[in-house]
């Protein structure tokens, strides 16, 4: 399915540099601005972080700076809490992304229907995304408070709960509550994106399928989902990265507590860097996190490839 233009150019690339530039130059030219920004602000710090992970860098003890090769990695990986925080980080990441996707796609399909008040509903469902994280976290912390939060008060009044639950302060519910709030804040982005994808599905196809007798589920599975595949893959991958690395949301809601029940590697990295000022250790943790993310993404592409081939 590749365009003919490129096929052609491929054949005679190595022979004539001039022609090569003529054919491909525009591709590099178009990429240039993006590369320029990324190199300055991402790649250079990225290399710096990678390098620092082999050094003992402690801002509080500047004289002790030295090349220590893998010591930072060893000390990170030999700490049993590392695996606990990794596990919790994965729960947080996948719990959030799955929840966001489900709510996102359902709301996108609902909002794509031909109904009255569509604009109104769109505006409302879009709003959580605009609430700054600081405010979102503080407001939810207040709402979920067991003593003076409206959520518990209402549930008790209605009779769903016998007594208030300390959602964010109990080891069993804290992670759930944190994910719940994150889904609330993030799902509108999925809605907006998936809605854009849905709008590009020609109405005629859906109508034709309906006339042919395809039910809602069939239309969903065989027409809607496949046509959203590309967009879905991208937003899922991007959010896996974003969520896995995110620290401020959990930090503002629970500070990783109670007793580290909601601590993730991102929080550990933050604490190492800006509480303990152990930048070497924090860099090693970041490097490990990057490797894990790369692993997740490779796995994702492999699975996708297998599905496409199968």
């Amino acid at each position, binding site marked *: 399915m590749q365009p003919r233009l490129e096929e052609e150019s491929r054949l005679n690339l190595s022979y004539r540099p001039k022609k090569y530039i003529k054919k491909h130059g525009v591709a590099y030219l178009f990429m240039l*601005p993006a590369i320029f920004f990324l190199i300055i602000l991402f790649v250079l710090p990225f290399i710096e972080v990678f390098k620092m992970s082999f050094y003992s860098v*402690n*801002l*509080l*003890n*500047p*004289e*002790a700076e030295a090349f220590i090769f893998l010591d930072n990695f060893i000390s990170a990986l030999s700490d049993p809490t590392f695996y606990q925080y990794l596990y919790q980080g994965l729960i947080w990441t996948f719990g959030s992304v799955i929840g966001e996707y489900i709510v996102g796609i359902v709301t996108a399909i609902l909002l794509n229907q031909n109904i009255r008040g569509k604009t109104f509903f769109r505006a409302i469902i879009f709003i959580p995304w605009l609430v700054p994280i600081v405010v979102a976290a503080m407001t939810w*912390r207040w709402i979920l*408070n*067991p*003593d*003076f939060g409206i959520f518990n008060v209402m549930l008790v009044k209605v009779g769903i709960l016998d007594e208030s639950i*300390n959602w*964010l*302060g*109990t*080891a069993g519910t804290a992670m759930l509550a944190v994910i719940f709030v994150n889904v609330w804040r993030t799902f509108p982005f999925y809605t907006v994106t998936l809605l854009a994808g849905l709008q590009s599905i020609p109405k005629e196809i859906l109508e034709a399928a309906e006339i042919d007798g395809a039910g809602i589920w069939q239309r969903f599975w065989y027409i809607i989902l496949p046509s959203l595949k590309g967009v879905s893959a991208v937003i899922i991958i991007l959010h896996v990265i974003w969520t896995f690395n995110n620290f401020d949301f959990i930090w503002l809601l*629970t*500070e990783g*507590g*109670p*007793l*580290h029940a909601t601590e993730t590697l991102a929080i550990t990295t933050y*604490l190492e860097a*800006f*509480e*303990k*000022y*152990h930048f070497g250790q924090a860099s090693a943790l970041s490097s490990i996190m990057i490797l894990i993310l790369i692993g997740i993404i490779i796995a994702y592409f492999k699975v996708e490839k297998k599905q496409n081939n199968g």
Partner: protein
Amino acid sequence: MKLKRRYSLLVGFFLTSSLLLSACGSSGPSSSETNKSGTNNTKENSVEKQEKVVLDLWWSMSANNEEHKNHYAAIEKFNQEHPNIEVKPQSIPLEQAKDKIITSANAGNPPDVADVLNEWLVSYHRMGILPDLTEDINKWEEKEKIPQNIWDTLSVDGKIVAVPSELGIRAFLYHEDILKAAGVTEPPKTWDELLELSAKLKEQGVAPFGISGQSARAPQELIVYFWQSGTDIAHQMPDGKYRNLWAENPEELQKAVEVYKLYKTMLKDGVINKDSASWGYRELDTNFAQGRVATTVNGPWIKNYEAEQPESMKDVQIAAPPYNTVPATFMEVGSFATFEGSEHKKEAITFMTWWLSEETQKLVNPGRSPNTGVVQDGKWGEGFNKLLDQGRSFPGISMGGIIQPMIDSIQKSLLTEESPEEIALWLGEQINNSLKENGELSESPAK
């Protein structure tokens, strides 16, 4: 300036080129003039230069906050009195300031003066970003008006590194009406009295005492209990370095164990709310202000809740915190610091000492001044400041690697079955680990 220009040119280039190139060969391109992307760089005329030093001041005061009006007025006064110095204040909230100062100072680009909290000072000093102010302070005529324990909290390794600007002392606060209703006339003086009184208060349907198990407040409460019990998280050894002694000194350990016993007893007997482990300062303060918690240890900011909770805050009274063997309380000293890398340290010191002088303090800090020359007024000012003698703050070690374990130890005692002894030993080990990582650990355990 130049770079800014170039940057906007770059943007302009991208935008205009996109417009021009987007045209198709067959259809005639609309050649409208779109060159100017409205950037009008008005040239700042180089005003004839006076020899005037501009001091960049980062502080948490907001120009539009009614309470901070006097602070800004004071800056203007300073600028008038010192024609060669101009202080330029920028409001930076404290929670942003901490990381921002580290970032900018480590990059060699710090502000000239900044608002700092005393728990940051040791770390800043170890990073080598705080100059030694001892000599200049010793020359200052009003030095004696500041109590020695305040200078102590602002000193690291015997050097004064910051100048106090504001004082926040913690006191025992209680709702007098709730105590009266329970037949209690006197606030408790010791831990035992607190526990005793709690049995009566519980019948009033409130939590007798309030603590915080999370965020910045929790370790501040914990360390006060250690002091009140006669121990500390780290002791300075003869070699000038520090060490936690609980693992090697059974007597010290016992004192620490009593603290965790107190936490456990308070939870078991319902002296504190069952959710206390997840209470940050907001939860604690709100619950106290609303009268759901009868007593707590807290600072003068609680006064701000009077507007929110006028009814339930009416009966709040102030006393000394109950203690075990040694009376002690937490003293929060807000201070100004200048930084290595600032080109105007001398002027900065002039400003900081001017700020602390009796004359200025009367203007800006009538209620909570570190300068004893300022007469305290009203229940809030007086009640807190008479506790000045008991006031202490964190020892001279970097707290970054210790704060989190301290919070963990509180949560362990409230949420797990671990024994007080296990918890104390665990915390002691964490503290010594952190000291070791930062080169602050004394290797000579004194017997």
